[in-house]
């Protein structure tokens, strides 16, 4: 269309991203900085995004605003789901802006890229948004913790439950990047370990609007279960269009392998009812989650997702570890984090393994029918609590050098 424009645009966008990354307001020279690196504007922005920044800021405020006598500052940036953009921002934050820890990190390809930057710079990252179990598998890093959930726990939650309920033949609609492939792989392992089989899969580019073609392929596979190894807007569109094409009416079932409360709210119960899904956190678990979620809701007008809540939990534990270690040194902080159980109202019965995975209880929920729901955000009913050791168990073992036997 226009050569000059095509050449200038990517550079301009990157420059804009870096400008935003730097624009954290007046910076005091001696502060502890926490970076929220998230998808602020695209298909994952509602499950993490600006809400994650709010959650991290809440943790900082609840912690008292300072640690080791230094003020705590929260900076945030939009990584646009682009690993190269994310790496540039992370490098700039670590090297020039004095950022000590980066959190959120939605999108697996982004988290894997930033994990390499953190490994090289020996900095802490606490991953909440990304799902790929490779972060604590073959790509595991000594100063990274995968906090809230991963593809293994999703597979052990939704995947195992579905197979046990008779869904023993699967067809995957998979987001064609690190996350989707990891989720498909880990779910396949769980399906096969439980005696099911996988009939096929189709790789769909990220951020696809129309899934009808892929749904028809899934329909023709005659698999009992169509596993959606995608997330955010992609999962929403798949579920919505599956209803339109009569997939469920035709006898096949959908397994949304990563569905967030924000997705269900967006879809509406009429479309989403009956979906089973695995979460690390739901706002309506008990009085503590409700009280915290209400504070979050007052700021954002949305109930928190497990990613946003996980950011709060991770930041809180990080700051406590810094305080206990009396140091910002990455190794000392990680050692401190790993030395104690992680157990708060968000992450329960948790402890951090040597591969960096935070093993904790997960929950299998089912989306309520419209008649069962009493309020706008009354969306889930609890089916089962999955103990950590069971939820994070890898049927095929772990390739992480730190734990490999």
């Amino acid at each position, binding site marked *: 269309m226009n050569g000059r424009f095509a050449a200038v645009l990517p550079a301009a966008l990157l420059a804009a991203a870096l400008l935003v990354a730097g624009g954290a307001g007046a910076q005091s020279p001696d502060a502890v900085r926490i970076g929220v690196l998230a998808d602020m*504007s695209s298909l994952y922005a509602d499950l993490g995004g600006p809400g994650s920044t709010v959650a991290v800021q809440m943790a900082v405020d609840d912690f008292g605003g300072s640690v080791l006598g230094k003020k705590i500052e929260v900076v945030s940036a939009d990584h646009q789901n682009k690993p190269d953009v994310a790496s540039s921002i992370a490098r700039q934050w670590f090297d020039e802006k004095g950022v000590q820890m980066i959190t959120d990190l939605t999108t697996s390809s982004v988290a894997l890229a930033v994990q390499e930057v953190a490994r090289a710079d020996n900095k802490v990252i606490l991953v909440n948004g990304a799902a790929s179990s490779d972060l604590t598998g073959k790509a595991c890093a000594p100063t990274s913790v995968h906090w809230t959930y991963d593809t293994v726990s999703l597979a052990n939650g939704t995947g195992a439950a579905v197979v046990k309920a008779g869904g023993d033949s699967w067809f995957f609609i998979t987001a064609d990047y690190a996350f989707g492939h990891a989720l498909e792989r880990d779910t396949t392992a769980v399906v096969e370990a439980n005696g099911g089989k996988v009939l096929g899969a189709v790789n769909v580019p990220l951020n696809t609007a129309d899934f009808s*073609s892929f749904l*028809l*392929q899934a329909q023709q596979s005659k698999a009992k279960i169509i596993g959606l190894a995608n997330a955010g807007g992609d999962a*929403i*569109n798949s579920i919505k269009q599956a209803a*339109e094409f009569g997939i469920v009416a035709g006898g096949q079932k959908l397994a949304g392998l990563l569905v967030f409360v924000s997705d269900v709210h*967006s879809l509406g119960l009429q479309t989403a009812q009956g979906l089973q899904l695995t979460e690390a956190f739901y706002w309506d678990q008990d009085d503590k989650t409700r009280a915290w979620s209400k504070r979050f809701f007052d700021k954002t007008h949305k109930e928190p997702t497990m990613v946003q809540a996980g950011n709060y939990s991770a930041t809180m534990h990080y700051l406590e570890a810094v305080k206990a270690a009396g140091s910002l040194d990455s190794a000392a902080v990680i050692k401190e984090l790993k030395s104690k159980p992680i157990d708060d109202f968000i992450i329960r019965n948790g402890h951090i393994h040597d591969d960096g995975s935070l093993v904790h209880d997960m929950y299998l929920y089912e989306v309520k029918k419209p008649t069962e729901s009493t309020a706008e955000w009354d969306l889930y009913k609890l089916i089962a609590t999955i103990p950590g050791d069971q939820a994070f168990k890898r049927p095929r073992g772990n390739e992480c050098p730190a734990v490999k036997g």
Partner: protein
Amino acid sequence: MFSWLHIAMPPAPALFAQLLVGLINGSFYALLSLGLAIIFGLLNIINFAHGAQYMMGAFCAWFLLDWWGIGYWPALVIAPFAVGAVGIAIERLLLRRLAGLDHLYGLLLTFGLALVIEGLFRQRYGSSGLPYTIPAELIGGKNLGFMFLPVYRGWVVVFSLTVCLATWFVIERTRLGALLRAATENATLVQAFGIDVPRLVTLTYGAGVALAALAGVLAAPIYQVSPLMGANIIIVVFAVVVIGGMGSILGAIVSGFALGLIEGLTKVFYPEASNTIIFVIMALVLLVKPAGLFGRAA
């Protein structure tokens, strides 16, 4: 003799189904590229805000339903007029100032506008989108033997084809269309014949924007009504317009439907490439016919 082909081919009914689905997507491409082509033809502006205007059409339908209980059918008429009016304001206040400058200025201005509009909607409504249900009359589907065709998708194809043909007829076969074609060639002379060309330009931009909004209303029940829906589709639609030939009405319609079909086939045979195939075709067309398939060489 070609029996080896069948090994890699899905059964014929499955292929029909995929082609039909491709045609459905093609009808969105055709409607959107039609509006772009009309705008480019007369205003010489590459309207990068087209995706945002498509999104505004879908949101307009949602507002009508959520705020005033006005349903799909009235929205199909109201939203294009409402968003078209916004387009007219944009042309009057902003685009008019760029008349006679290089394409790049219009493109940058509308690109900036699109970012601002999408940013505002995202700020207010988030990124996961809002649900909009299929109108009661069009719920359900027909079993065609080779596939289950949702009635709504069938409606989308028939309706957009009708709109495309009607637009083509107006432009190629009526006096208003003759004025538009003449003004595209030589606006100064048309004005010297007594036509208020600036007003014609404003209304044309409004009409192009209205077409985008119409596509947005059609899309609302299929996709989530999301601030991002336009940004996702607009780049593809630009490629469609370039392939068809910038400013060519027939080119926009034919290549819109054709590329929907090709994309549909790609989703069967090599799904990973389904969102790049159109750009590959664009590159090939530009190499062989720089003015596009239906474009007149400048």
